[in-house]
């Protein structure tokens, strides 16, 4: 990460620091790629968090492992493996979502089984291939600092396609996510919507994680969206906050890692977690204030749960 033995030094002159970071082409590419992933993952992740499908998102992100190792074993481009496994995973998880109403525990158990199967297959592929685990680290954690111009272009194209697809699905999907019974009664294909969203999630994760690593994509899917939804329930402002927080987290993380020996992924995940904790604390403080203003009679107390 450091290019000279002494390394760049950080000072109080912000303009000098930023221009020092931007001096290198690989840093510019890393910042751009990180920004693109932050916007796409923020938008898709907002819907994912709203639908409480974090576990599904995590499982789909994990599909990169059998995808990459299976492709290496067969000698085909890694992208084929990513897309095949993410698509199959979305179908396997989506089978249990939507119209045929299953309990939460049953759905999460199914997702867990899909993930276990995928990882077991991935490990099998790795050991058949000859047990090169050096790749595993780059699959999980990516190499944001080695993004080429072509990769950046491809990444931007995929992200734009994902955002356009999400925008096309957005209105019915939002309805189905918030109140699936009412949406089904109004004739919306709830199950088809649910599977298409999972497929979109899987493809977006597959396409971006090849370049930036699974972990970074997952961190950017969950944390900014969860923070934004803790702060406001209105869709548009919360989407805006999500994207802003995602960009902040990525750029700050990359900037700090430039001046340190530790990898960018570490800083990005830690900063996103800190942002989430701050958002939760802020939301709790807001709720407490509004509760204090409200008349005491309407305050829901513990153990006063009336059978509903």
């Amino acid at each position, binding site marked *: 990460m450091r290019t000279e033995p002494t390394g760049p030094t950080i000072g109080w002159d912000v303009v000098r620091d930023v221009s020092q970071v931007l001096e290198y082409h690989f840093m510019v590419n890393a910042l751009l790629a990180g920004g693109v992933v932050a916007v796409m993952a923020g938008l898709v992740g907002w819907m994912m968090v709203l639908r409480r499908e974090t576990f599904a998102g995590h499982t789909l992100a994990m599909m990169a492992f059998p995808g990459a190792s299976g492709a290496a074993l067969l000698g085909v481009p890694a992208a084929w493996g990513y897309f095949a496994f993410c698509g199959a995973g979305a179908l396997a998880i989506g089978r249990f979502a939507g119209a045929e109403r299953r309990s939460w525990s049953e759905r999460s158990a199914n997702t867990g089984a899909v993930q276990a199967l995928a990882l077991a297959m991935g490990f099998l592929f790795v050991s058949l291939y000859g047990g090169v685990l050096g790749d595993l680290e780059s699959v999980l954690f990516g190499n944001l600092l080695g993004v080429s111009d072509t990769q950046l272009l491809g990444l931007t194209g995929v992200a734009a396609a994902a955002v356009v697809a999400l925008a096309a699905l957005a209105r019915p999907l939002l309805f189905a996510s918030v109140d699936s019974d009412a949406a089904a009664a109004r004739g919306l294909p709830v199950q088809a919507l649910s599977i298409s969203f999972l497929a979109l999630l899987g493809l977006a994760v597959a396409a971006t994680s090849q370049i930036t690593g699974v972990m970074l994509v997952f961190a950017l899917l969950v944390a900014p969206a969860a923070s934004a939804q803790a702060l406001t329930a209105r869709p548009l402002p919360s989407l805006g906050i999500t994207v802003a927080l995602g960009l902040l987290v990525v750029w700050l993380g990359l900037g700090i890692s430039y001046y340190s020996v530790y990898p960018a992924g570490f800083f990005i995940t830690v900063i996103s977690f800190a942002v989430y904790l701050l958002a939760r604390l802020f939301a709790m403080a807001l709720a407490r204030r509004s509760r204090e203003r409200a008349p005491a009679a309407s305050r829901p107390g513990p153990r006063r*749960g009336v059978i509903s």
Partner: protein
Amino acid sequence: MFSAEFMRNALLAGTFIALACGVSGWFVVLRGQVFAGDALSHVAFPGALAAAAAGIDQRIGLFAATIAAGAAIGALGRGALAGRDGRSASASAAEDTAIGTVFTVILGLGVFFLTLLSTSSAGGAGIQGARTLFGSVFGLGAGEARLAAGVAIAALLLTAAIARPLLFASVFPDVAAARGVRTRLLSIAFAALLGVVAAEATQAVGALLLLGLLAAPAAAAHRVTAAPLAGLALAGALALGAMWGGLTLAYALPWLPPSTAVVLIAVSLYYAALGWR
């Protein structure tokens, strides 16, 4: 097969680890906490790496990390719900996001320790990482196997001790709370117990594949029967079957890693149960 010592060790540790996973997994599925179990399995990775970086026995780091994370998930998840309605389904759904964010930081710490390890000591990091992620049940020594079996038995006994109130609190949280069951304490205790089981199973099947042993047999049992005792017994039996079958298969086929074989059998059992009903 039984003449090889590594096989006897693997069977001894595997048997009790499978039983502990199956039985506690039944409660995990019942409580809708599969994602929490998944998170715990990933905590094992930075835990073991941190111990390796600090130069102490990796099992200490493993157990410390998973138990602490289990207790934290138990406390944080339920605590966040104090103001919400107490139904377990929505409770689990709200946990979803909290676990997801904790996850990212856990994996981030894993990278951090991996970097620390690879900069402090030349090499060894990859092997350590591979052992933690995928387990090495055939590499257990006699002492390690006996210790693993002992801890698994202790976890089983603890599960049995809290089984009745835990079942009550999982199915009817409100009624249980009204009857004076300390549901919050129970859920923290169970999550910590789950941490012990996760650290145990990490030694056998590895952090990445632990979910297969924890969730798949239990989910299959839940599909087949709703009766608690029969379900618990079936979950334990299926996990045991997957473990024995997987170890035998891996012994017979040298190219097949044991943890993969165990998880593949466990997941096939789950899909068989789906088709059966």
